[in-house]
């Protein structure tokens, strides 16, 4: 878990993520067998921000669960830093839905990630307050999730993922359900927070623009495999407006989009394995 959990320097950075020949099969129905992850090898250096794009059901969410240690691979090995994946505050996870505990206040939802950890009560409290201020929720600490807008709920989920000062941050289409404006604001905030502490990030998205705005590197997945893998050489800090004006941005966008388009068209089945199907099985076999 987090080996540098104290109030050290802001840039204590992330841990590397490595997948060596990892496979994972799901059995969504009696006679169905889906290779969610098919012999994937991937090395993500510490502090890199990686966006993963690809059609629905291509194994992106499964990849994140494997890295978080929520599920185990059928074969191959996942390594975080120099140990195996273990769920905990050292790895921050944001799911497709906010997954806030409805009977807990914003403060206690964020604090949930620290409970059972090494911090004492006072440290925990200070950490939570700092985190809430960072995501702009200081005034809302005593509210319940049902009293917040969708964007604010996402902020709570983000704060919960960040409060353990994770050196790996896993985000599964976290902003997919937000309106365009809220989404842009959240993206800018995420970049600001990331540049603060520099965890290693795996960010799953359907949006080519989101991938190019946020990431150092974009991975295209399809049918459980990594199909493309390239670096995004755009200067940082990128704000939504000026990033889109760069020429390289347009070129990258075209390249990425044509690849995804081809993937989706070549594989009509991928739409069939949409959300809630093979992509997010509740009980992996």
């Amino acid at each position: 878990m987090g080996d540098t959990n104290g109030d050290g320097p802001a840039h204590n950075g992330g841990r590397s993520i490595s997948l060596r020949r990892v496979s994972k099969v799901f059995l969504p129905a009696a006679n169905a067998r889906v290779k969610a992850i098919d012999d994937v090898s991937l090395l993500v250096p510490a502090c890199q921000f990686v966006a993963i794009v690809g059609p629905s059901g291509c194994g992106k969410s499964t990849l994140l669960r494997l890295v978080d240690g929520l599920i185990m691979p059928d074969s191959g090995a996942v390594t975080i830093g120099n140990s195996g994946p273990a769920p905990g505050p050292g790895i921050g996870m944001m799911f497709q839905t906010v997954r806030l505990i409805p009977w807990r206040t914003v403060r206690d939802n964020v604090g949930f990630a620290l409970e059972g950890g090494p911090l004492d009560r006072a440290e925990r409290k200070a950490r939570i307050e700092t985190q809430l201020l960072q995501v702009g929720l200081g005034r809302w600490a005593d509210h319940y999730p049902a009293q917040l807008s969708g964007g604010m709920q996402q902020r709570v989920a983000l704060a919960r993922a960040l409060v353990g000062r994770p050196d790996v941050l896993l985000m599964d289409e976290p902003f997919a359900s937000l309106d365009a404006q809220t989404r842009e604001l959240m993206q800018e905030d995420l970049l600001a927070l990331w540049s603060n502490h520099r965890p290693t990030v795996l960010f799953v998205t359907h949006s080519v623009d989101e991938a190019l705005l946020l990431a150092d590197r974009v991975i295209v997945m399809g049918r459980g495999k990594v199909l493309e893998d390239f670096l995004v050489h755009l200067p940082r800090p990128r704000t939504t407006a000026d990033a889109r004006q760069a020429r390289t941005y347009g070129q990258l966008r075209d390249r990425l989009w044509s690849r995804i388009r081809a993937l989706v068209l070549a594989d009509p089945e991928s739409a069939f394995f949409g959300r809630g199907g093979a992509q997010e099985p509740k009980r992996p076999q």
Partner: protein
Amino acid sequence: MDRAYGNRRTSPLTVAMARLGLLVLLLALWWLASEHVSRNLIPSPPETANAALRLWLEGKLPGAIGTSLITYLGGFALATVAAVPLGIVMGAFGLLGRTLEVYVYALAATPRVAFIPLIIVVLGLGIEAKLFVVFLGAVMPIVINTYAGVRQADADLVEMARSVGARRARIFRAIVLPGAVPYILTGLRIGATIGLINTVVAELYTAVTGLGGLLALYGNTFRMAEYFVIVLTLAAIGVVVTEALRLLERRLTHWTKPTH
């Protein structure tokens, strides 16, 4: 659930007024019926009120209420104390739950009156038998609802808890149990209703006492005004207990309200 249908804009005062209005209407209808149906069958509201006052001053009504409440609340409390932990344990340990659930459902479907002869043989006609009859009625809905509440824990929240490193015990304490509270309270409400019915059943079938006893006495002797007093008293007890549980539910689930 009234909150799901946008009733939250109706102020409590409006609801209270509407309820009061309906009460007045019902009283008027009752009065009208008492005037037009043969007097011996339906007593008028003033007659009933007089009977109530008389029964109260004679001490019959307070005594019967006391006796019945001891049976009712005692049996209900025993059922709660037994059923909530049982439902939780059944939900927590899958095999145990799956093993017991068939028997629980079977027992819940059997008319509880069927057990009364057996209960009388074993426990006699006194307070023990009465408490057990109430217990038997109230216990099943509480077990079943508690069990369902624990089983229907939000899988997404459980996964979230796992991802922050929570182990089984903490997930159960922080996610599963609080999530089951609304179910448990629903079980308590159903149990309270059936418990009241069984209180009267117990008082009719075992040693005739309490409100059930008075009900039989006045019913059999056609003292309809007194009989009405007992029926209304039972209704009032039912309303008070279920409203108290509703209030408790509202307090415990205050977090569902969208505004402060």
